[in-house]
């Protein structure tokens, strides 16, 4: 059977889940962090495209949970458990958090990439989800695709080639 592989696309400040044989993808991560939480036995994975470290930064009324590290990981975890993932089997992989532009001046805003990475790690630690692999920091954009069957995270870049972690 030649069935087209289903690709679930996750936008900016968005999250979603996928079951094998589908894969899940998010494109153009810069300072944002793509975090995958998965249960390999269930062939189930969730991906969040996190933009900001903490929901306390929110100044508006409506809160988009997928946007912030603290709310996105909690939300993703709840959805995965509801879909049948076992908490003890969950693992995580992450990529992104680059610093796309270098400035001599510039305060916290310029460091948003590293801050996002720290915040995601802190949340994963809070829920005791081990980080199996990561490709973070640097100065380059990344497009990532996760396969919940193999557990591999494919990372494509413009200037540094392609790799699997």
């Amino acid at each position, binding site marked *: 059977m030649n069935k087209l592989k289903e690709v679930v696309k996750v*936008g*900016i*400040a*968005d999250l979603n889940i996928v079951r094998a044989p589908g894969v899940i993808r*998010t*494109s*153009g*991560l*810069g*300072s*944002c962090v793509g975090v995958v939480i998965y249960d390999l036995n269930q062939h189930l994975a969730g991906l969040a495209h996190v*933009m*900001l470290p903490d929901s306390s*930064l*929110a*100044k*508006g*009324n*409506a809160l*988009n949970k997928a*946007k912030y590290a603290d709310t996105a990981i909690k939300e993703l975890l709840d959805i995965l458990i509801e879909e049948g993932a076992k908490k003890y089997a969950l693992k995580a992989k992450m990529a992104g958090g*680059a610093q*796309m*532009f*270098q*400035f*001599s*001046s*510039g305060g916290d*805003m310029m460091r*948003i990439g590293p801050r996002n990475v720290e915040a995601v790690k802190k949340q994963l630690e809070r829920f005791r989800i081990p980080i199996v692999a990561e490709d973070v920091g640097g*100065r*380059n*954009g*990344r*497009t990532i695709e996760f396969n919940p069957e193999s557990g591999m995270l494919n990372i*494509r870049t*413009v*200037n540094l080639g392609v790799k699997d972690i």
Partner: protein
Amino acid sequence: MSFVERLSQVHLDILKEVGNIGAGNAATALSQLLNRTINLEIPTVQVATYDEMVELAGGSDHVVAAVYIRIEGEAPGNMFFVLPPEQVSYFVQLMTGDSTITFEEPPYSEMGISAFLEMGNILSGSYLSALSDFTRLNLQPSVPSASIDMAGAILTMGLIELSQVSDHVIVIDTILEEENSDRGKIRGHFFLLPDPDSFEKIFQALGVNVDE
């Protein structure tokens, strides 16, 4: 409801004029720099989601060459000058007279990047000075920074301030085109993304009430 969703047609028209004045001045500067005729289309002002905004530049993992400038002063914000890499190669070759410089494949020549930055510097400077004259607000560009990478990775940098307030952005987009180009229609974008608090200042400076 956040400010972004409260904008009326009058506000959008004013922002369009802001884009027109800024980019018009920048297009003139670019024409002089390259000794070519550069035209600009009427700017569009859109209230877009993050994904829609990135789509304007060709999509999240579409490769673009961009110069990023942080606007400092009374109405801070972000500005991007976004071009297809092959267009930058062509512009920089015209500027430097060195036809070996290209931006299609890494590694990029240091000389080339520095010429591209200088181009970004001149363009953003002329965009901002026109804007500053029009609004009488004090605006200064930061030192420009360049990147050749995925559009999503580059443009989300300009959303950090805004994303704390709203899930929508107001993007003032102006398309530049070279006249009589034998290279087909190649387009560049100017994206102006004022910080959330700056809109009020821009409207006030032009004598328009925010809640109009």
